[in-house]
């Protein structure tokens, strides 16, 4: 038996398994890129406001965009001022959301967006959004947050209504707040 041959091959196989461990992690950005490109999972596009304002407007049809608001494990009130707006593809739309901290302590939250139907979400882009940013709310504070968006003119004809949904989550691991929320969460299950 050729001992160096064995060690050589075993070394290569160890490298292969380490590579596959890395590949497991590489699936995370790959998955996100794939979702961004295809609009899977309701991931929306982002365009700059200059690009959005120069888009030609399709005057032949109107798309209804409805707004959906949710909260998860966070003592806030979260609503959209208008439940829905009608826009033409290529035209800038705007929506205002109101958040109120109903508790007597500081809470940090973060909103995660999603668009339905998912197949249409690649055609929905935001130029300005409060989502993904951490929002610190003082006790009792009320704040208005704006979203500016544009529906692409290439949106297939079969879609006449879209829903933009936001869910506010408490930021986990934020000291006392998170601990209290965890207990609240535990008591529910």
């Amino acid at each position: 038996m050729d001992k160096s041959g064995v060690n050589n091959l075993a070394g290569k196989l160890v490298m292969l398994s380490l590579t596959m461990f890395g590949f497991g992690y590489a699936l995370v950005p790959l998955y996100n890129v794939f979702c961004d490109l295809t609009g899977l999972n309701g991931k929306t596009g982002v365009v700059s406001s200059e690009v959005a304002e120069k888009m030609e407007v399709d005057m032949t049809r109107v798309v209804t965009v409805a707004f959906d608001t949710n909260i998860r494990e966070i003592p806030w009130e979260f609503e959209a001022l208008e439940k829905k707006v009608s826009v033409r593809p290529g035209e800038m739309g705007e929506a205002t959301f109101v958040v109120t901290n109903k508790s007597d302590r500081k809470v940090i939250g973060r909103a995660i967006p999603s668009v339905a139907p998912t197949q249409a979400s690649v055609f929905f882009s935001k130029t300005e959004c409060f989502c993904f940013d951490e929002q610190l709310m003082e006790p009792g504070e009320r704040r208005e947050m704006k979203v500016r968006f544009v529906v692409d003119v290439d949106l297939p004809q079969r879609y006449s209504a879209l829903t933009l949904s936001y869910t506010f989550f408490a930021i986990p691991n934020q000291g006392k707040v998170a601990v209290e929320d965890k207990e609240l969460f535990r008591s529910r299950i």
Partner: protein
Amino acid sequence: MSEAVSHEEHHDDHDHKPSGIGRWLFSTNHKDIGTMYLIFSLIMFFIGGAMAMVIRLELFQPGLQYVDPQFFNSMTTVHALVMIFGAVMPAGVGLANWMIPIMIGAPDMALPRMNNMSFWILPFAFTLLLSTFFMEGGAPAGGWTMYPPLVGQLGDGFPFLIFAVHFLGISSIMGAINIIATVFNMRAPGMTFMKLPLFVWTWIITAFLLIASLPVLAGAVTMLLTDKFFGTSFFIAAGGGDPVMFQHIFWFFGHPEVYILILPAFGIVSQILPTFARKPLFGYESMVYATASIAFLSFFVWAHHMFTVGMPLTGELFFMYATMSIAVPTGVKIFNWVATMWRGSMTFETPMLFSIAFVVLFSIGGFTGLMMAITPVDFQYHDTYFIVAHFHYVLVTGAVFALFAAVYFWIPKWTGNMYDESLGKLHFWLSTISVNVLFFPQHFLGLAGMPRRIPDYSIQFAEWNQISSIGGFVFGVSQLILVWVVIKCVRGGEKATDQVWEGAEGLEWTLPSPPPFHSFTVPPQISDASAH
């Protein structure tokens, strides 16, 4: 032949076995390590089986009788983990350890110390996993697939689950590296790849699947761990992560994993059928290529486990067609097995009976798999007892029956004694009848809408559940016969010849029964004419 010469040459070291417990703890001998793997997997088979008995007992009647729902869910979850990682995989590795060196004419495995380590990791890994039963929050109960966010609700046992999976993965990967290194470097002169016994071939391919897929599982559970304790958000929506992504990563491992469980079984059956049909295996080369195709395709079908998660139509179509295409190489294999038996001079000893039952019952499991590959109807089958029936047909009457067949086929070689044939036949008939009583009604339950992983059910499911439970109890008790046969055979019995079976061909049958502690220290010569 040269075997005779080689036996004389290493005659003196036959009895140089280390004595006492050290022989086992520090063993670097492929036969001893193989034996330990097989005994370990038999013990785990009974631990996992006991959990299955609890499940069937609770499901004997509607309503909650014996265990609370949390414990019931622990039973289903840990039963799966124990059976997959503790019973079927180690049994396969144990057979590979025992048989591959003596099938290819090698003196031992290529990396004997690593071999020792990969076995001894297992008892520690399962101590970690099973100790969670005594912890605050109990044992894992969110399903063996460990989907977040549910798995994150596990109490103190959570890190134990994750590290147990890590250790099991490391053990299997080391075993796989060892097998590939052995087959690539230590074949006897003249033993070309296309002369390898099919069991060796299926294990090479399985080993590559292990190396390519288990690290991905290790990555996925590491992400779960850091999500829970180190503030990452791979799968936490609040941090911008996505729980569905876990399912994609998990099943990228999970589908190759099911072939890791079944491919060695294909190899076993491909050794046994030609022996008792007294004909060479039909279509040897097509068997090798079919096995390799199944393994390759298994990396492109993962999303058929999650059709209902919400996927675009093109994705569902892709995974549907990709999944169905695996039926083609599998069909080639079934055809070859049947053609091997066709006009053979068949005799029906216990290993042959189990192998024939494997071909028939595995095909039933394969067909229900094809049904579920059809996306639109899968929405009805998803997470019902239909899937439970399907994967138990392929894993119990498939993988486990092939392992039974392997034990009966090779135990005369291992011990030097013939097993008790009438007890073996009793084990076969009781197992085969009861396993169908156990799992066939579950198809009907699933089609009628009974969900899996639920301790209680609506009363219209009562009859089939009762019948299934009775089958389950009989099947469970029948396995004690196997233990009896094994113990009896180890203790004594009619002496086995070197060839053991009239139609047996291959290097392992040229060695004495039992083979000496160190065999093939001088490699045998393989002539061009010898068959696989």
